[in-house]
């Protein structure tokens, strides 16, 4: 247990969450080893975003426990959360950039509001973060003046400027074309190694996730039905994993059936 | 907008705002607070109707003080009016105090008409010669009656 909890930066056990009658999380558990890139896969509506929001304390779970760095985070308890918040950043699906602040001000905000650094230090550290994410030239632009990819990078810069140990990504590739998806995963993997943070990514983009991640988990109907390495995922015989993995083939079969049906119809007429 | 520019504008606004507040409180509100030394005396009226604490005290039409308080004297049911007057102004003992009105429906004030005595009123002394409020209702009645007699267009006589 001792050695194990040292290795695991984040341990989630038996998380439950209902919205009225709707059970979203039903005893979800997950282990995130220190320094790794873990991806949680799942269909839309499987409870992936809610899982992350429980971690970020935006949503309060009904029951279950979260251990961060061996310490229990009590649900809704401000003091035990303060340490976690300092060491963890959250990247929203919508980026949630402050649209009335410039790129530089966006990055500087978490430092200004949560640290006692001087203005000069804050400026230096923010510029450094922008430089690392290659947005230095756009420091005085507003988020609306940046492209979608740049906004994503800016959000990442804002997330890492506080030098967190854990970064949570909520659907970073949602709605992007395949090339952009690759670029985002490449960016996460690159900066994850560069800055040495632990990354927990929630997505439904299977191909990219399998290539980029160290570990993969599959969430279905609020439960974790698979947890392991990408190689184990590819070899797994769990029904849900097979469905997910072989969805392209399933599509092929469905389409073939439709075409056969059309062919029969045209023969009939 | 740059923080420094922002601060400049806000600073200007705050100066303007403080100036306005000071203007209101000092120029309009609290004139009596910033005046010099004052002393208090009393005057007995049979009727102090319409007079309030804070009403002006005038000598020859010039404000020299304020009414501090009004109470009923329990012995003869007359009104005891406390007047606070500038210390620099010496008033003879035979000064007459009368309650008058600015305009027709204006505020009541106390007019002091200094006499010719050699001795002067001191703090706490009492003005004996007084003239009470004019009974407005009878006055208006008279005027209305008079104006009807004279015709509609002629203005009412000044009181």
């Amino acid at each position, binding site marked *: 247990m001792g050695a194990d909890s040292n290795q695991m930066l984040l341990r989630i056990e038996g998380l439950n969450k209902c919205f009225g009658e709707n059970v979203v999380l039903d005893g979800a558990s997950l282990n995130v080893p220190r320094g790794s890139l873990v991806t949680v896969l799942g269909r839309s509506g499987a409870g992936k975003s809610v899982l992350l929001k429980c971690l*970020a*304390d*935006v949503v309060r779970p009904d029951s279950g426990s979260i251990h961060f760095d061996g310490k229990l985070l009590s649900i809704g308890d401000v003091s035990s959360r*303060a340490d976690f*918040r*300092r060491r963890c*950043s*959250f990247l*929203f699906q*919508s980026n*949630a*950039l*402050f*649209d*009335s602040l410039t790129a530089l001000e966006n990055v500087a*905000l*978490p430092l*200004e*509001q*949560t640290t*006692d650094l001087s203005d000069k230090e804050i400026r230096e550290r923010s510029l450094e973060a922008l430089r690392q994410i290659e947005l230095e030239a756009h420091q005085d632009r507003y988020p609306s003046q940046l492209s979608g990819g740049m906004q994503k990078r800016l959000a990442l810069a804002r997330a890492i400027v*506080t030098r967190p140990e854990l970064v949570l990504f909520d659907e970073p590739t949602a709605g992007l074309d395949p090339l952009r998806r690759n670029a985002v995963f490449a960016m996460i993997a690159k900066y994850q190694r560069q800055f040495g943070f632990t990354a927990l990514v929630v997505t439904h983009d299977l191909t990219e996730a399998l290539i980029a991640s160290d570990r993969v988990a599959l969430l279905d109907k609020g439960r974790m039905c698979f947890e392991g390495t990408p190689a184990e995922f590819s070899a797994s015989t769990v029904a849900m994993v097979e469905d997910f993995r072989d969805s392209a083939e399933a599509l092929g079969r469905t389409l073939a059936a439709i075409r056969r049906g059309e062919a029969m119809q045209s023969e009939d007429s | *907008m740059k*923080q420094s520019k*922002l*601060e400049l*504008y*806000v600073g*200007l*606004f*705050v100066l*303007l*705002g*403080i100036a*306005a*507040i000071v*203007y*209101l*409180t000092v*120029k*309009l*509100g*609290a*004139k*009596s*607070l910033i005046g010099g030394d004052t002393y208090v005396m009393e005057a007995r009226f049979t009727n102090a109707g319409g007079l309030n604490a*804070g009403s*002006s005290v005038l000598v020859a039409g010039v*404000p020299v003080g304020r009414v501090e308080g009004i109470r009923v004297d329990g012995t003869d049911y007359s009104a005891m009016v406390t007047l606070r007057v500038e210390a620099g102004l010496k008033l003879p003992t035979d000064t007459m105090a009368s309650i008058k009105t*600015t*305009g*027709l*429906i*204006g*505020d009541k004030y106390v007019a002091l008409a200094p006499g010719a005595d050699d001795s002067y009123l001191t703090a706490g002394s009492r003005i004996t010669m007084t003239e009470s409020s004019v009974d407005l209702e009878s006055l208006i009645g008279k005027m209305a009656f008079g104006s009807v007699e004279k015709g509609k267009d002629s*203005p*009412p006589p000044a009181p």
Partner: protein
Amino acid sequence: MLRAIGRYSLSIVHELGDFALFTGQSFRSAVGARRLGRRIVRAGFEQGVRCLPVIIIVGMFTGLVLGLQGYYVLNRFGSESLLGTLVSLSLVRELGPALAALMLVGQAGSALAAELGIQRNTEQIAALETMGVSSHAYLITPRLLAALVVYPMQTALFVTVGLWGGSLSGSLLLGLEPGVYWSSVEHAVKAQDVRECIIKAVTFGLLTISLCAYHGFNAHRCSSATGARAVSASTTRAVVQSSIIVLAADYIITSFLV
């Protein structure tokens, strides 16, 4: 029917309690807030500098109209000399605080409610919370503290400009002696009136800015609409309720103080 009334009353009580907690939370967040001064300056800019033109214009016209109407009414009684009394007392006691507050609601309050609503909608408020930044301390506390200072200032400016407006229409247009006007102004206004004026301004500032912030901040809880509609609905509600509360509070304060 009875149950509907009961349910409605309960929901009002619930919302009032929620609003009171919200305001209390905003003040409590001032403790430990970082770089609060800078945020207050920005809020002071929004409520002060931005709203200055409308305060001056409306104040000037209010004074002009009061001077004009007052002159014609008083002229019938031959008491034009009381014009200063009429203009100054109406401005200081009622019109100044109430109209200035309504103008500030229209300009700063509506902007605040809409801005917070959009920030709620685009998860910017949630983002602040996940960063460990108190959204109350960052977004609402500075505005509330600024309002406590800015509202009395705006009101004083409104009254001052209004008094000059009154003298303008009274003496310049209608030929009243300026000395007569100003002496009756100075004579009429007492320290008590100015104090009442300031108390009203501070109360209106506290109530309206807190109410606008409350509705904007809770735009996601709007039951009748979602998304952009929720922002517009909560902004409308913020402005309407703020306007009502200004006049209601005005009546209550007046009846207690006079």
